[in-house]
């Protein structure tokens, strides 16, 4: 393989890695010596600089990483911030509701209610600070308990959990129970 043919392959590997990747690792993967790897990295870096790419090759010690050029950070911030403004998905709403009305609850409980895996949704809700960990259940495996946060209250305009709108099921248990059974 000609040295220039390694360049896009290096680029692809560094791109997919996301995190800084060590020179030794690259040399190893491509079965070449380190000076050659360095030469390839230099060519890649120059090509990115000269072709007017928005991405550059960053050297951190003996590791390398692709990253965006600082002059575009305003746009990036803007673009990624907009994504924070996307409303919760239906799945997220449901998980949030189940947690809000039954807190503190385990993931297993939420999954039993919804009948589907909810781990992804739960971590998203934690990330958005709508729910948080509230200790562990004293059961084998010590499962985590989740409950809602102040951000949650603010988001729904509540001053406390007591203000959660009542569920119809609690108002008139008997009647609701009958209708639910009739459905099946």
């Amino acid at each position, binding site marked *: 393989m000609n040295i220039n043919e390694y360049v896009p392959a290096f680029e692809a590997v560094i791109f997919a890695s996301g995190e800084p990747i060590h020179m030794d690792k690259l040399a190893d993967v491509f079965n070449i010596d380190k000076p050659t790897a360095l030469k390839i990295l230099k060519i890649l870096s120059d090509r990115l600089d000269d072709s007017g790419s928005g991405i550059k090759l960053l050297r951190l010690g003996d590791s390398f990483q692709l990253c965006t050029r600082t002059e575009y950070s305003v746009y990036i911030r803007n673009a990624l911030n907009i994504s924070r403004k996307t409303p919760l998905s239906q799945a997220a*709403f449901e998980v949030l509701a189940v947690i809000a009305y039954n807190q503190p609850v385990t993931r297993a409980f939420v999954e*039993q209610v919804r009948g589907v895996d909810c781990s992804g949704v739960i971590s998203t809700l934690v990330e958005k600070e709508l729910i948080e960990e509230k200790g562990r259940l004293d059961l084998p495996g010590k499962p985590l308990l989740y409950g809602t946060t102040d951000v949650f209250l603010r988001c729904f305009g509540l001053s406390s959990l007591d203000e959660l709108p009542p569920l119809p099921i609690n108002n008139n248990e008997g009647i609701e129970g009958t209708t639910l059974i009739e459905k099946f």
Partner: protein
Amino acid sequence: MESLTFKLEVFEGPLDLLLHLISKNKLNIYDIPVSELVDQYMEYINQMQRFDMDIASEFLEMAARLIYLKTVSLLPKHEEAEQLKQELTQELIEYKIYQEAAKTLSQSTDGFDTFVRPPAQIELPKTYQLKHEPEALVEAYLDAVGRGLRKLPPPVSVFGNIVRRKIVPVSAKIVYVLRKLWSGKKKRLLFLFEESRNRSDIVATFLAVLELIKANRVEVCGQGENAQIKILKERA
């Protein structure tokens, strides 16, 4: 009947098996010779049994359906048989279409050979910032529960009739349990049953405990004989 010689293959389901039998015996899918197909299908099911394989319920359901179809086909007037056969044909054809589509799809993957990168780690507050009406939660809750309903324990009201026939009312037991726990100390769950005189007494006490748990009035933890129960006064 010619004995089946194929190795016991694994099929995706009864439809997959039927399609296999049809193509193997070069049968006309639009005019299936019912009794031939039924015999071969049953032969396969028998082989599965002989090999001690777990037979999924779907295979047995189909077997029942096929046998019924074969039976009505023997009747002198068999409009119903025609109807059933047509339904089966439709299902087989539809499934066949998706089987082929699946084959095409499986050949058109890139072998999962493209890679993307995780989003850049930029310090941005991820805190949720939109506002919603609290009623949206009720709706979402009902949606969620609607789906899993069958998997949840039945509502207490289901037990209404059972309990009513018994002598011991649950409401009396609720008062009994609360009184026993009023001190606020953790008690063994079994402690509540020590005074139970008969089965209906035990059942009513147990239902009372369930009711109280549901209403967040008591908390039960631990398991088996060591399960403990405690009153939750702050919520009461």
